[in-house]
């Protein structure tokens, strides 16, 4: 019977990135995927004829350009189309636009407040400075502060030097910034509520926190570190939907000789004498591999796929204490015509970007209060995009696909499991909010898919529907992610690795965890990793 060099559990983007790098290093790699489609949460699915749905992740920006180049993704069909900006429609019928053009952006802010337009310059400079420090860390394994191994010490020294390179006020700003709430941070710059609301959203998307929770200023960075075509902080659509990312990865992987098996759900990881020997599939079939890498989140991996007796108690305790509460839902809509938003100027470029209706930080925070009580937000925060405005491949001519990300949406409803009736009521909350700003919206709906944390967990396997495979709070970042002592992609079981968003640097369609895990594995195998670019520092 064949023994693979490595078996990757899950064909999500990180699993595929990991697989690509290993295969290109000369290993014989198999990817097993439980669904009959690949991509995990980066997929395009034709859920109604003629319409492609980016039904989980919906914009592409965080994906590391180094990985894109290493794995030749453009050659395998990946194209990212940068979009213009976006707008917040306010309750009084006005709007705040955001443009990529610096001067247009400034003029728009000045329309609301001259002081804020001025402050934006300071704000952009300060946030960029924070990004510049963090960004190179994305593609490095976090050092273990408790270890005296030369590598950890040299990584710590690297961090120390980097920090020492800052001036004292910059250091102080940085330390302060890391623990601030995005709301407090923005209050230091801006006076206009809608401007603060627009900028605050990057601090909360995907988190189980509100804009007034300390630590959300850091989350802002997590969303700012993306770049499209070398333009930092820009956002774009993957042509053909988010599935184009994973399709390109899969094609790149197969082209270098790798194998993908779909409809192959892993029942458990095969462990003998403390060493990984492969996986057992749901039907009982054993597939042998010298190394196994799990793209699943840390709870699913170690509480469901590995037998308890193989794991030390402190590790299990920490895995059980891992925080992975889901906070968002998704409503994906096929439209038979372009929706109208009377508040926006005709043909506004904002229609091609992201649209929101939450015009104050208070409304955002109140939406979070509902989630804390295990209810979906009565007045949710929506992040809507209509990628078909720039990408004609996703819908029939004249028709549109709209992705609507909804926050907050709890993993359980007042202590019980979600029901279909709950899901429908949740969708109605969302649609009625859109309809308030877009007359005739309901009549344009051809088809709709509603995803609560229940659906995200059942289909994609994200525990509690958490899109980042674990909350992004200090206790779960860097050397603490996913759990202290195991932040370097290895697990307590020899030969078993992790490569999902549960690991450093966390979620988003970034690919960094998959790449970093591959780097650690090749190091263990003492194989060269010349095909793997070092992290670049562009900002």
């Amino acid at each position, binding site marked *: 019977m064949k023994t693979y060099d490595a078996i990757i559990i899950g064909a999500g983007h990180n699993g595929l990135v990991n697989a690509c790098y290993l295969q290109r290093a000369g290993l014989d790699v198999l990817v097993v995927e439980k669904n009959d489609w690949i991509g995990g949460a980066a997929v395009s699915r034709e859920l109604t004829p003629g319409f492609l749905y980016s039904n989980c992740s919906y914009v592409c920006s965080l994906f590391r350009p180094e990985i894109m180049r290493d794995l030749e993704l453009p050659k395998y069909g990946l194209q990212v189309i940068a979009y213009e900006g976006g707008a917040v429609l306010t309750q009084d019928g006005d709007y705040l636009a955001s443009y990529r053009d610096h001067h247009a952006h400034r003029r728009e802010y000045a329309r609301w407040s001259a002081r804020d337009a001025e402050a934006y310059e300071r704000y952009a400079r300060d946030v960029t400075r924070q990004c510049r420090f963090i960004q190179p860390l994305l593609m490095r394994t976090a050092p273990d502060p*408790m270890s005296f191994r030369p590598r950890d010490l040299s990584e710590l020294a690297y961090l120390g030097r980097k920090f020492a390179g800052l001036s004292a006020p910059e*250091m102080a700003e940085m330390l302060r*910034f890391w623990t601030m709430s995005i709301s*407090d941070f923005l209050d230091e710059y801006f006076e206009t509520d809608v401007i603060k609301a627009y900028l605050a959203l990057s601090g909360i998307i995907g988190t189980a*926190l509100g804009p007034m929770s300390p630590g959300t200023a850091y989350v802002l960075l997590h969303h700012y570190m993306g770049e499209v075509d070398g333009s930092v902080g820009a956002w774009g659509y993957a042509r053909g939907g988010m599935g184009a990312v994973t399709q390109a990865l899969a094609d790149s992987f197969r082209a270098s000789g790798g194998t993908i098996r779909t409809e192959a759900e892993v029942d458990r990881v095969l462990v003998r004498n403390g060493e990984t020997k492969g996986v057992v599939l749901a039907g009982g079939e054993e597939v042998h591999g010298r190394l196994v890498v799990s793209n699943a989140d840390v709870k699913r991996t170690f509480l469901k796929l590995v037998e308890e007796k193989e794991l030390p108690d402190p590790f299990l305790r920490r895995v059980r204490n891992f925080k992975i509460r889901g906070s968002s839902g998704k409503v994906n809509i096929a439209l038979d015509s372009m929706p109208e938003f009377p508040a926006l100027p005709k043909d506004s470029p904002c229609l091609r970007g992201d649209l929101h209706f939450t015009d104050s930080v208070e409304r955002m*925070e109140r939406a979070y209060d509902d989630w804390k009580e295990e209810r979906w937000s009565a007045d949710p925060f929506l992040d809507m995009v209509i990628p078909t405005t720039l990408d004609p491949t996703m819908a029939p001519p004249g028709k549109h696909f709209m992705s609507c990300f909804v926050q907050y949406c709890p993993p359980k409803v007042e202590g019980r499991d979600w029901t279909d009736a709950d899901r429908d009521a949740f969708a109605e909350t969302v649609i009625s909010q859109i309809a308030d700003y877009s007359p005739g919206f309901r009549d344009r709906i051809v088809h709709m898919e509603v995803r609560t944390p229940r659906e995200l967990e059942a289909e994609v396997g994200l525990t509690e529907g958490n899109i980042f495979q674990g909350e992004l709070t200090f*206790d779960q970042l860097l050397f603490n992610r996913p759990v*202290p002592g195991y932040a370097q992609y290895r697990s307590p079981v020899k030969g078993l690795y992790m490569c999902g968003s549960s690991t450093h640097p966390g979620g988003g369609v970034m690919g960094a965890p998959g790449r970093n895990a591959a780097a650690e594995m090749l190091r263990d195998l003492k194989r060269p990793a010349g095909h793997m670019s070092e992290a670049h520092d562009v900002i």
Partner: protein
Amino acid sequence: MTSSDAIVIGGGHNGLVAATLLARSGRKVVLLEAEGEVGGAARTHEFHPGFRVSSIAHILNRLHPDVVKAMDLQRHGLTLEGRAMASVALGDAEPVVLRGAYGEMLDGVPASEATAWKELRAQLIRYAGVLTPLLARRPPDLAGMPLSEKLALGGIGLSLRRLGREDMRDFLRMLLMNVSDVLDEHLTSDALRGLVAFDAVLGSHLGPRSPTSLVGLYYRLAGEVGGVPGGQMLPQGGMGGVVSAMAASAAEAGVAIRTGTQVARILVEKGRSVGVGLANGEELRAATIVSAINPRTTFLDLVGSRDLDTGIVRKVQNVRMKGNVAKLHLALDRVPDFSGVAPEDHKGRLVIAPSASHVERAFNPAKYGAFSPEPVMEIVLPSLSDAALAPDGACVLSANVQFAPYALKGGWNEGRPAFQKAIMAQLERHAPGIGSSVIASELLTPADIETRFQMPGGHWHHGELQPDQMLMSRPFFGAGGYDTPIDGLFLAGAGSHPGGGVSGVPGMNAARRVMAVTQ
């Protein structure tokens, strides 16, 4: 014009400590207090004939041993008896009583919960102990430190190492966590979790689910009374008793205390402070000015933006200092009876915070400028331990009530009656009949605290005590080590590291800094 070596502005506990230590170093020191008596927010006042109460701070739990020693407070009349006062969590069921220093023993929970608490408590006190040495010294200086400072910090690193590898990992993981998640990982009792969650967020604008809220608990547990970490006591004569001992020590050290003396401005010449101008027009000169009052008042009102860099003015304005705690004083004609609480335990600290989620729910409205309809609070009946505070048979009740946002929508004049009603409803639930025993009451909202004690925002700590406003960023970077952008001007109040509470530490650290950098 008169002249001295140092002028200390503000006769609160920190001002008294700073002035005394400077005087003991041989300097000629003048202490200026705007009110008719010293003490600031640590006074005892009569709020109804025959009824006296600690004005703001009412429990002594962090007066630093170095301060007690350096000022010889015990010789000057401070007693540290009864320092293991109980805390009682008034829940929906039987109260949970924490006895000894922060619950060495626990009543009212099953044995399994008591065991879990014992472990968690030990862990929290151990971790707080790692941080304790940071309090009584100048915060690390990012621009570089002398070797002695580096060594001292290295010592803290070593004490962290001594925890052992696994413990240290947990320490680093938990440091910035929210208190609610930490409690959920260990405990099941709602009442116990409610009490600890309340303690972690008391005095700050955070809910138990806000990340970093565990830091508040560490801050509390880093305090001690008479060598007992986590201990707490009601001082004899109220907090004014502590201040009297300090004032006696100051007088003995030769500090010239001038009460009823409002400082109008700090005189700055060529970027250097040279003295102060009083409200009555008089000018006092000194090479060293120590401001033991609020940092915003110090910079914006007394120095003035004309003598400050724009960036500094912006930083001062950005210091968050909106208070969230109200103080309720009740004169009662008899001792109240809290349901299920033993008579002896009425001398303890009674906490109404039925669960951590209740505390979180009480916090929610405060984010939007509304008070909690079901507020959470910490109650003491100080006259049970010190009969002199109330007439015979009568009783004083003193409560810190959260959440009462400084910037209440509609203003406190309008909101006060409704808030007082909400508080009384909570009290009535746990002590039926208490309402009918009230002779007189006094409710100090943050707005009242602001005007009465000259504390902008009515904030206990003169600035939110959250990680981004701690250490070298307290009150802001550039004035974090007690010295300021103005040569010769130093800060010594709770707005400076490590923060508020009757500890005397900011005053002590500031005095040491002054001695280190001036002749």
